[in-house]
């Protein structure tokens, strides 16, 4: 390694195997090579917790010996400053949405307003016990009621449950509700239709609900193949699960006909709300003919993703599905007071503890109140504008012949490119492009999904990005392709600038090491 003429000697490079030496503007920069877990830090006797005063008598007889733990768990022993330093430093090994562009298709990485953290932290919300008497939680119940009404308006379906913990949980609720609906009419329908572009949770959900998935084909325009649907929809069809726009970013213009076909055989139509960000205030799933809709509060409604969770997956349903909705439900009395009721005899029951992820309701409600009708529509319109602009920019920069749009000409809030020509002509794959984008300071788009598209790259900029950011991203993609033209190895061995480089995922799966090995004291 050298820069500006200074060559590091072998001695300097390899003096300590635990230390990495970089040459930076002619000077040595040392960093520790390997990360250490919190279990490898601290020392016996160090502590952060100070136990409150032991103000009651100790009781030897309180817990029989045979129920007692013999050896304490080997949790770490660190002082408070050590703990803070450890986790703060770990945080710096993460890329995040506040720091940079995150066009992960299907995830709707839109800005997370900090107002929402402030209101969620108000003690009246954050420190409210879930089993507090409803008469003393009227603010919370009113918030939930208002959120339900707002979501109902966005979806075009009147009955809402905020209970499900995530999108896939909302899907499970939807399938269980469909099953209950049919069983109540004395029918045992076992098949759920799903397009082959569907998100992976759809088939897994169906199996968990005791039903069977049947795949429906996609036509050349990227929509549902109507002939295939007509052939497969029948008396044993419980439901068709769809998202519109779909995972190709295409709005299926045949949606009304699809709804007719499905309803004609007596089945229900389920809307996966993952792509709701494209259509708020423009069209509503209820108006398209859907019976059940799930929302992803952590996508469309700014609940922060938190590195993977928490999320929330409320559902809205039509009149015919309403009797089966989960309990408890928020109800309003004539005097305007609110309560939680389980008095719904046909309900499928509950799908989780308490009443759902209230903390996410506070944030999403604050978002809806901040934006209002006009702002929500603006969000969707801008999301669609930004996606089409980015697509057009890529085209202008000459990227389209290596990364063509998989379907159609325009898109909704996201678009899918195929890296197959790039792979054939430049010998770099979608994966390599993604890894090289990391060196340019961008989080890559979603890769290898949907499965229908070869070497797929699913790009969703969202509405909260500026045009300059979109231009910068398009420029980066163009440059990486130019670079690959000259030397494909650069992308193939990327990234170079991240805390670690490409990791051996096969080794992790073959001989899983999923916890730190601890030494006994």
């Amino acid at each position, binding site marked *: 390694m050298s820069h500006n003429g200074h060559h590091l000697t072998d001695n300097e490079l390899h003096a300590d195997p635990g230390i990495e030496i970089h040459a930076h503007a002619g000077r040595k920069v040392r960093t520790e090579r390997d990360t250490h877990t919190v279990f490898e830090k601290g020392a016996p006797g160090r502590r952060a917790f100070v136990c409150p005063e032991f103000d009651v008598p100790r009781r030897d007889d309180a817990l029989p010996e045979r129920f007692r733990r013999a050896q304490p768990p080997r949790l770490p022993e660190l002082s408070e400053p050590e703990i803070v330093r450890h986790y703060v430093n770990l945080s710096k090994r993460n890329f995040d949405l506040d720091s940079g562009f995150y066009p992960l298709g299907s995830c709707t990485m839109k800005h997370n307003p900090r107002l929402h953290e402030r209101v969620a932290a108000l003690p009246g919300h954050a420190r409210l016990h879930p089993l507090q008497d409803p008469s003393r939680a009227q603010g919370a119940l009113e918030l939930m009621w208002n959120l339900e009404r707002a979501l109902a308006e966005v979806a075009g379906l009147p009955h809402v449950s905020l209970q499900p913990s995530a999108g896939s949980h909302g899907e499970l609720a939807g399938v269980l509700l469909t099953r209950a609906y049919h069983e109540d009419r004395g029918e045992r329908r076992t098949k759920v239709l799903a397009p082959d572009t569907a998100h992976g949770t759809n088939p897994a959900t169906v199996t968990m609900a005791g039903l069977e998935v049947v795949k429906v084909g996609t036509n050349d325009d990227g929509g549902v193949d109507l002939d295939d649907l007509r052939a497969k929809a029948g008396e044993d069809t419980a439901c068709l699960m769809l998202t519109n726009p779909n995972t190709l970013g295409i709005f299926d213009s045949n949606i009304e006909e699809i709804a007719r076909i499905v309803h004609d055989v007596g089945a229900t139509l389920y809307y996966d709300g993952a792509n709701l960000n494209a259509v708020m205030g423009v069209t509503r799933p209820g108006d398209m003919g859907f019976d059940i809709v799930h929302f992803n509060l952590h996508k469309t409604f700014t609940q922060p993703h938190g590195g993977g969770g928490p999320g929330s997956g409320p559902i809205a349903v039509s009149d015919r599905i309403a009797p089966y909705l989960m309990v408890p439900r928020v109800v309003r009395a004539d005097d305007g007071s609110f309560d939680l009721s389980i008095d719904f005899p046909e309900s499928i029951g509950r799908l989780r503890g308490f009443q759902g992820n209230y903390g996410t309701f506070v944030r999403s409600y604050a978002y809806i109140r901040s934006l209002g009708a006009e702002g929500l529509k603006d969000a969707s319109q801008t999301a669609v504008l930004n996606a089409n602009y980015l697509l057009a920019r890529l085209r202008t920069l000459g990227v389209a012949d290596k990364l063509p749009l998989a379907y159609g000409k325009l898109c909704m809030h996201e678009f899918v490119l195929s890296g197959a020509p790039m792979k054939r002509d430049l010998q770099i794959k979608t994966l390599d492009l993604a890894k090289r984008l990391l060196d340019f300071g961008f989080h890559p788009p979603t890769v290898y999904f949907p499965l229908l598209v070869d070497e797929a790259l699913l790009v969703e900029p969202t509405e909260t990005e500026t045009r300059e950011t979109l231009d910068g991203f398009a420029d980066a993609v163009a440059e990486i392709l130019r670079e690959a033209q000259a030397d494909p190895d650069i992308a193939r061995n990327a990234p170079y600038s991240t805390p670690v480089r490409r990791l051996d*995922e*096969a080794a992790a*799966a*073959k001989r899983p090491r999923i916890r730190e090995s601890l030494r006994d004291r």
Partner: protein
Amino acid sequence: MADASYPDDLLYHTEHDWARLDGDTATFGVTWYAQDSLGEIVFFDPPEVGSTVTKDEPYAEVESVKAVSDVYAPLSGEIVEVNTGLGDAPEAINDDPYGEGWLVKVRLSDPSETDELMDAAAYTSSLP
């Protein structure tokens, strides 16, 4: 294994499985095409010795980093031996799919089923 190969002495099944006959027993495995599609294989959980396999039905799963695939029985019979070495070295399925990467040995219940399998030429021409 770097290059595609489909040995002539084997019989092939449409679901990308092969059979090597030896009297009334046969050895099963997955083809080069199968291991190439799956990517690096990380896990194989063999079925129990003594259990039955039925032609065209799945009898086990092969797991790679990115996917899990059913393994289909080309012929019916009773499992007499399984390749326990794959527990430590599942990558043998990638490196040597017809040799060290064999999966199970089966005593055939109906040897006439071999009529329905393909030879190397027919299998290779059926590949996309």
